[in-house]
Structures are given as structure tokens and as C-alpha cells.
């Protein structure tokens, strides 16, 4: 079978070897039809990796104490040996930047190249969420603009003042995304120009909001339209545009955090898919290298050892258990899709008639492009994967004394387990549904957020803290009302001032 000499036999890497491996892996990836951005592979030291870690993978970020905190934390863990450092970090940009650590062996470098430069890269380029929400071509420019702008603000207004706004924005980062409008990509130069315009314009018009006081309320029943006319889910956007007391530069800071939140929005929704896809492809690509005789048995053993470690799924009662491992679940699902195409069983034909026996490359490509974690699980989690992982669902209802096993990996439970696991990846299920419903324009200018309750789950203990941040940005009182599933409403939090739970 082996028609060619292996590319390398030792464990040391060199730049020539990295280029050779990249060329070979890239060639195979193209044969499999992977469509990628150009790659920019950067070799870095371990301390640079810690840097990259602590700035949530952004190649350049503005300065903020929380990144320092993450840095200190990562460094401490790394020094104590609690964690190995990043398997890889890859940035959704064009060209797609991947980091290789200089401490890695040649095998690990090849693994990371296959995983990041071809796996993640093709996912970034193909998946609809990334295509819709991020603009790989301009992100680096935008980050640079953000870093400069924030540094400028720090010079003008003091580090503390900027830090306070950033703290507040970070607290609301998850509520800074327009879920229904497609953002329009713009260049950094354009961004700077528009920023200056916005600054002047917004400040001139912001007070319009308050000018529309009703002429008179003589008959007591003036029907003033509520503001905002429709509930707003993008809290940061609303504050940026409507908070009466913010300075122009503060609005711009809010906007920067919002933009960056939006850039990360797809990543939070495609963890299983993204990691599963990259893992599936590094496994497939490196095995292909081996089949073509380009790598040695030793290489494969080292690769399989780390592949197995990454895709390990400890059972729920193990001390190592910390939830479902997205690498394990994703890899199992994509691998099973391929199996269903190549070696379908009767069960597959029953469950996935349109997939069983099909062309696995087409099927996988479709399963990568048009889904996010929630719909991906709902669509493709097969009975076999449920059985292999021995998945079971536990229902915890605080009205009942005991918790209950709702479904297990048996014929009557497959669908239920699949639904429940899918909803677990639904962002709406993980985060409270909060929307801005009202601004009291005629009274105390207070802002009301509505929490629409889902399965009676209340807001968490940090709500009061976050409300302080909303209050800081809004400048006037902030309330939270809850809309229960029964349809009743109640005021549950206020800032400033505490409200007893109704």
C-alpha cells in the first residue's frame, strides 16, 4: 500500500516540514471537497498562547482588567499543570489565522493543521451562521479600530471612566445581538468615518425622544404610543441609540462591544458542530495520510492517543464529568452520518431514509452548512449515537420531591432524548429571555425589561448586579418584570431600590 516515503520520521518539526504537511493535508482536503479561506499559520510560544487564551482568542483586543484576570487564571492553571495548553486556537478571519505552539511535536502540529486550518476553516467559510453574522474579511481591521478607539478614549476621559462603561457593556454582551437583521459588512476606514458622523448626529437628535411629550392630558386619556413600539431584544443596541445621558464616545464603546459580541454569536451556537466537524476532518485527513504511506506508525499512535483524549466522554458519575463533551458528541454524530451513508442498517433506513446509502460527502456538507447545534442535534442525532453514548434525560421539577429519569436510550426514548438534548443547545433555553418593553417617557424615564419565563425558571442571583450595569448606561431607574407562563405579570427587580418579589 505504501507507495511513498513518509514525510518525516522524528518528532521534531521544522518550517519546511510544516509546509510539506500543510501541502499534503491541503491536497487531500481539496480532494474531499473542503472549501476553505487561505490559511495563515503562525508559530508561537506557550506564553503567547496564554495571551491568546485570555483575550478570548482575539488576535488583538482593547485593554480591560477582565482579560488580565483570565490571563492570571490561565497562567496559574498552566503552571500548576492543571491543564495542557490550547490544542489549537483558530480565528475566524480571512485569511484564517491558526496558532501552532512551538512546544508541540511534529505529529501535534500536523494534527492542528488538519483540525484548524482545514476543519474549522471550512466550517467558518461554509456554515450559514458564520456567513450571516461575521465578516471574516474585516474583523481584524475592526478589532484594530476598536483597540485604537478605546485607547484614545482612555487618554481623553481616563482609564476608569472607560473601564466602567466596558464593565457594564460586558455584563450585557449576550444581549447585544440582532437576531433577525443581517449585519452589513463595512471596512475599517468606512467605520471610522461613520463613527465621526454618528457621534455628531446622534447627540443632536437624542433629545428628540424626550421632546415628544404629549401636548396636554386634559381629558386624561391621551393614547400615547408606547416606546419602544415593539419589544427590543438587543439591549445594547437600544441603549446605544436611546440612552439619554451617554456621551458620544460612550455610545461608540457600547457599539464596539456589541459588534464584537455579534462576531462571537455564531461560535456560541455551533460548539458541537464546529468542534465535531474539525475533529471528524482531522481524523479523516490524517488517516488518509497514513493510507497513502505519508506518515509512520509512530505518528499514528501519537495522533490517536491525543485524538482519543480529546473525544473522551466521561460518564455522568465520573469525577471528570463536566457536561457533554462537544468534541465527543460532534465527532460521534459526523462519523455516524458517514457510517449511515456507507454501511446503512435497517434502523438507519427507517430513521434517515434520505441519508442512508447516500453520498457521505454531500450529506456531511449539508449537515455542516445549514444548521446550528440545536437543529443539528434535532435533525441528525441517531439512535446509534444515543446508544453508544448511553444518553439519558433527567427531569428536575422543583414542585416534586424527587427527580425523574425522563427517557433513556431505548426505542421509546430516542425521540425524547433527542428533543431534550437539542433544547439544551438552544440559547433561548440557556439564557433568560429578556426584552426591553417600555420606557416611561412621561414619568421618571424608567426602563422596563420583561423576562418571559420559560418552564417557570426564575432569573439568577446575579440579576441585581447586572441591573446596576443597565442602570449605569441608561441613567434612570431600571425595572424587571416577569411574564409568567400563566400570563400574569409581576415586578421582580428594580434598580436603584429593591422590590420584594411579588
Amino acid at each position, binding site marked *: 500500500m505504501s507507495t511513498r516515503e513518509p514525510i518525516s520520521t522524528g518528532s521534531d518539526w521544522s518550517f519546511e516540514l510544516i509546509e510539506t504537511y500543510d501541502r499534503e493535508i491541503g491536497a487531500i482536503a481539496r480532494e474531499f471537497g473542503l472549501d476553505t479561506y487561505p490559511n495563515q*499559520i503562525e508559530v508561537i510560544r506557550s506564553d503567547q498562547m496564554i*495571551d491568546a487564551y485570555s483575550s478570548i482568542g482575539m488576535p488583538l483586543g482593547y485593554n480591560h482588567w477582565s482579560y488580565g484576570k483570565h490571563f492570571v487564571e490561565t497562567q496559574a492553571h498552566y503552571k500548576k499543570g492543571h491543564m495542557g495548553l490550547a490544542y489549537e486556537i483558530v480565528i475566524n478571519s480571512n485569511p484564517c489565522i491558526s496558532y501552532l505552539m512551538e512546544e508541540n511535536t511534529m505529529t501535534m502540529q500536523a494534527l492542528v493543521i488538519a483540525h484548524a486550518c482545514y476543519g474549522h476553516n471550512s466550517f467558518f467559510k461554509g456554515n450559514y451562521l458564520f456567513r450571516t453574522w461575521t465578516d471574516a474579511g474585516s474583523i481584524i481591521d475592526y478589532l484594530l479600530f476598536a483597540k485604537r478607539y478605546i485607547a484614545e478614549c482612555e487618554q481623553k476621559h481616563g482609564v476608569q471612566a472607560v473601564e466602567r462603561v466596558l464593565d457594564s457593556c460586558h455584563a450585557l454582551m449576550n444581549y447585544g445581538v440582532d437576531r433577525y437583521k443581517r449585519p452589513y459588512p463595512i471596512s475599517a476606514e468606512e467605520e471610522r468615518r461613520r463613527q465621526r458622523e454618528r457621534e455628531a448626529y446622534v447627540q443632536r437628535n437624542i433629545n428628540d425622544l424626550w421632546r415628544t411629550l404629549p401636548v396636554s392630558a386634559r381629558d386624561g386619556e391621551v393614547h400615547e404610543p408606547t416606546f419602544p413600539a415593539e419589544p427590543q431584544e438587543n439591549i445594547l443596541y437600544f441603549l446605544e441609540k436611546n440612552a439619554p445621558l451617554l456621551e458620544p464616545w460612550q455610545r461608540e464603546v457600547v457599539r464596539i462591544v456589541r459588534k464584537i459580541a455579534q462576531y462571537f454569536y455564531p461560535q456560541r451556537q455551533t460548539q458541537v458542530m464546529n468542534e465535531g466537524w474539525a475533529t471528524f476532518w482531522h481524523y479523516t485527513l490524517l488517516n488518509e495520510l497514513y493510507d497513502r504511506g505519508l506518515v509512520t506508525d509512530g505518528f499514528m499512535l501519537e495522533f490517536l492517543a491525543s485524538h482519543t483524549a480529546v473525544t473522551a466522554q466521561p460518564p455522568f458519575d465520573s469525577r471528570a*464529568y463536566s457536561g457533554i463533551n462537544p468534541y465527543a458528541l460532534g465527532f460521534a454524530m459526523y462519523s455516524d452520518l458517514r457510517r449511515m451513508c456507507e454501511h446503512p442498517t435497517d434502523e438507519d433506513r427507517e430513521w434517515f431514509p434520505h441519508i442512508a446509502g447516500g453520498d457521505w460527502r454531500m450529506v456531511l456538507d449539508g449537515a455542516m452548512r445549514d444548521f446550528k447545534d440545536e437543529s443539528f442535534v434535532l435533525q441528525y442525532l441517531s439512535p446509534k449515537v444515543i446508544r453508544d453514548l448511553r444518553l439519558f434525560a433527567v427531569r428536575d421539577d422543583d414542585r416534586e*420531591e424527587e427527580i425523574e429519569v425522563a427517557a433513556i436510550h431505548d426505542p421509546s426514548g430516542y425521540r425524547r432524548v433527542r428533543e431534550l438534548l437539542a433544547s439544551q443547545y438552544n440559547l433561548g433555553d440557556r439564557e433568560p429571555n429578556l426584552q426591553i418593553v417600555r420606557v416611561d417617557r412621561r414619568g421618571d424615564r424608567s426602563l422596563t425589561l420583561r423576562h418571559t419565563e420559560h418552564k417557570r425558571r426564575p432569573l439568577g442571583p446575579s440579576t441585581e448586579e447586572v441591573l446596576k450595569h443597565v442602570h449605569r448606561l441608561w441613567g434612570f431607574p431600571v425595572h424587571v418584570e416577569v411574564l409568567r407562563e400563566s400570563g400574569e405579570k409581576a415586578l421582580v427587580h428594580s434598580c436603584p431600590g429593591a422590590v420584594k418579589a411579588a
Partner: protein
Amino acid sequence: MSYVIDRRLNSKNKSAVNRQRFLERYKKHIQRAVQDAVDRRSITDMERGEDVVIPASDISEPVFGLGAGGERSIVHPGNREFEAGDRFPRPKGGGGGGGGDGEASNQGEGDDDFTFSLSQDEFLDYLFDGLELPNLTKRRLKGDGSHKYVHAGYTTDGVPAKLSVVRSMRAAKSRRIALTGTSKRALKAAEAGRQKAEEAGDELGVARFEEEIARLRRRVLRVPFLDQRDLRYNLHLKQPMPTSQAVMFCLMDVSGSMDQQIKDMAKRFYLLLYMFLKRHYARTEVVFIRHHTVAKEVDEQEFFYSRETGGTVVSSALKLMHEIIQDRYSPNEWNIYGAQASDGDNWNDDSPLCSRMLSEDLLPLVQYFAYVEITRRTHQALWREYEAVAKRFPEVFAQQHIRELGDIYPVFHELFSRREAA
């Protein structure tokens, strides 16, 4: 299409700014940890970093989240014996349902307190933050070995090792141009003349010109390529470096009443002082003087660990300190600091003498003299005498009282805290 880029040489410490901001924000916690460390640590390992623990609640970055309660279903892997419909009690008091749920992993960290390490430098920075040496009339001086060489141009005289080749060749060239310029011009003219004579067939003229040319050539050749006077040497001058040096006198009572515990406390105090001085002065020397009825200069080991018994005559130590200053540490050259620790016992008739020696002999010579009394009992004559001294010399003399281990750092802080310019 791929590019491979080596970024290993890129700047280090990209996160340094963020780390500093983080430290700044949690300064209070860090300072508390540093103070605890001073109280807790063994005497010899003051100079290393420290782990700082910050409660999770103080450092969290809050986000909207869901709380406990309501109904939720979680899918777990690794089922062994459960069947659908099995019921069992809620683990751990019925919180939000089980151990590793999806949300916990989403938020990244649990409720553990946040721990991180300060480096040794940072530790000392926080330890001495806000402290300052009083009376910093640092004396500039020319001590031994405190010279540096500075480049001071070129000289025509020197040792071969310092030869400046470029300068020498430049000098040679300019000399050659200067000395041969006229001859070369004449040579050119003669050659042109010979050419003309040759064309005119004037053999006599040619011969005369050739003779002239030969003469001029010899003249040019006589000018040497390199001459002794072309040589240039780098000139380095020895410049005295203004350095400041300090000597610290540690005076301790080792009479029978001072037990090991009190000595330990004294030692901590001295150690802090020593580290503090070391940060301020390029050279810091320490003189240990212990005394009971007689004073003696000893080394560190003996100072802290040997025991003597007998009465106490404090003035003997002051006297010895004065002698040593006269002998070895001229106040013109040294910044002198004195620190005296005692349990307050003294031979009653001796205390007024101490007070007099201090005010007349020592205080004019020293930058600062600190007295710490380590005792749980009431003050005795020595404290009262020193109180009077402190009143008269508030600038250079201070006394403080230490009751227990925890007092040391606050007292130290008090003695050296930055004062508003009076």
C-alpha cells in the same frame, strides 16, 4: 494557499497591561494578602511571591442567567442502570438539578475562590507601597568601585587595544591629501607638458619634463601611507558614579527577659527594614549590636539566636554604635539608620543617659532612628525618656509599640508611611 509565519519573536507580555489593570482593581485584596503573608511567613522567606486569594463573589463578572427552580431536563451520558420512570431524591439539597449541567460549563467557572500568584517584585511593591524613607538627604559621594567609564572622544596617544582604525585611516588620508596635493597638481601639469613636447618633437623638452615627472613622483612616494601621527585612540574617562549607600544598625536587648518569641518579632521587624533599605540604596550594610550589660558587635546568627542572661544597660549599645560610626561609617559618606528593639527593660539610672546620648551623639549623625518596644507589659522608664526625645526630634526619631506578631507590619507602615511635606 497557506502562509507559515514565525511569531515567536514577537513581543512578550501582550497581557501585561491587562494584568496590571487587574491588579490595580483588586489592590485592597492584594494588600490584605501581603500583610497576612508578612504575619504568617517564616522569617527567612520574606523575599518571594505570594498567592493571593480573592473571593469569587468579589471578582465575578455578572451576566443575566437563570436561577435555581422551575422545571428543567438535562441529558447526561453514561447510563448504566436507569430505566425511564425511575425516581430518586434530588442530589445535594435540591439545587438547580445535578452536578455538571449545561449552564455551568457555559459560564466557564464555578464558585471557587480566585487564586493567583504575585511575583517577588510585585510582592515587595505591595509590601512597601506608600512607604518612604524619611529625611532623604541622600549624600552623593565617591565611594570605592563606584566608577564607570564613559566615551570621551579620541586622543592621539594610547594603548594599541584602543586604536580606532577608522579614525586613524581618516587622519592618514587627510594628511596624504594635504602633503601631496601640490606635487600631484605639478605632476599633472608636467605630464601634460611632456605630451605636448612629444607631439612637437622637442626631445630636449621631453627629457626635461621626464626628469621633472620623476622628481615629483619621488616626492609623492615619500609621503608615507600611515604615519605615527595619524594614529587615533578611543578615549575613555573614568567617571565617578554618584552612589548612595546605607548602613543599618540593629540594636537588640538580649538580656534574660527577651525570650525567643520576642526576638522573632524583632527579627521580622529588622528584616522588613533591611528589605526596605535595600530597595532604596545601591549598597546596604547591616551592623548587628546586641547588648545586656555590655554591648558587642556580632554576626547575624549570633544576633538572633544566642542567649545571654543578666541585667540590661541600653546605653552600652548606643555607645558602641557611636564608636562604630566614628570608626567606619563617616556620616558624610553613609546614610545611617538605627533600629532598636527591646522589651523596655533597662537599668533605671541608665535611661536618662540613653536619652542624652541619643540626642547629643547619635541623632545628629543618623537619618532616622526607630525604637520599637516589644512587650505586653506597661511601659517603663526607657519608653518615657524616649518619648521626650521623640518630642524634641520628631523628624529623625520615632518609637512604636508592638504587642503581637500582627502589629509588626502596621507599626512598620506607621514608621515609614509617606508624610505630607511639613
